């Protein structure tokens, strides 16, 4: 049985997709992120705005469409997220 993802896990999935799974150099489109991170359009828009505002993602306009790339800060955050996810998992918890 699959369980609901926490907000933190959704952010982790979006950043992971933006880091490891982008289709080209310019980054991933919203549609691509929606499909890969498995999240609705309404929800991902708010999260992406938040991540761009905090400097974890870089936004660029390519052929009239927004593309998202992970930033240097985003990579560091993802590394910290993975480490502390394991730490919390050791206590049987989800961050």
């Amino acid at each position, binding site marked *: 049985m699959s369980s609901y993802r926490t907000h933190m896990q959704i952010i982790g999935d979006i950043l992971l997709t933006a880091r490891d799974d982008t289709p080209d150099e310019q980054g991933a489109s919203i549609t691509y992120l929606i499909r890969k991170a498995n999240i609705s359009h309404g929800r991902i828009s708010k999260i992406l705005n938040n991540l761009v505002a905090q400097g974890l993602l870089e936004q660029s306009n390519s052929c009239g469409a927004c593309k998202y790339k992970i930033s240097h800060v985003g990579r560091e955050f993802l590394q*910290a997220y993975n480490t*502390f996810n394991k*730490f919390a*998992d*050791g*206590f*049987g918890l989800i*961050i």
Partner: protein
Amino acid sequence: MEFFLENILNLVGFVVGLIIGIISYIGFRNTGSPTLFRLTLAFFSIGAGFFIMWLGQTLDIFVYKTGHIERWVQTLGIAIQTVGYFFIAFSHTIKSFFPKSNYLRSIGVVPLFLISFISIENIIRSISFILLAYGAIETILSYFASKRKTAILVACGLWALAFGEFLGWYYFVFPQSILNVVSISMKIAGLIMLFIPVTKVPLTRIKFDENL
């Protein structure tokens, strides 16, 4: 002998609580995770509780020289530890710990003004036991979901702490027995088991928050 062993336990508890608390706090500052914030509160409380008891005993050894820790100091230390155990249990989404009725809530604190420190200590120890047992059960269940071996160590650590609390409570029924030494040894073993998974976290790869 018991007094000395208890002093070591309190020192180990303080150090383990402080280190896990600091790591949780670093995690919270770097990720903003509420779970890591609750773990920070939990382990800082556990560390603070052990520190108060260690300080009380050390002051008695070097200053007061009565051979036993002040009852109110021991009760305070155990109460603060229980707050920490509560946050561990709360992290496992404990949902209905307190009674919902306002009447029950209002009379719930009345007995605390009517009974002695020994009784309060017994009540706190039994609450600690319930919270620790709950945390241990939830951790074992999470092991079945994730199959992460460190979860077993944490669950065993929480069980050992719970069993130590139980024996410590039972010691009031049979004083002057070996139960207290066994209880303290169980707690030390439990704290060490809680600490082992923390040593496996690769913190050296993390570039820490510069504002920390």
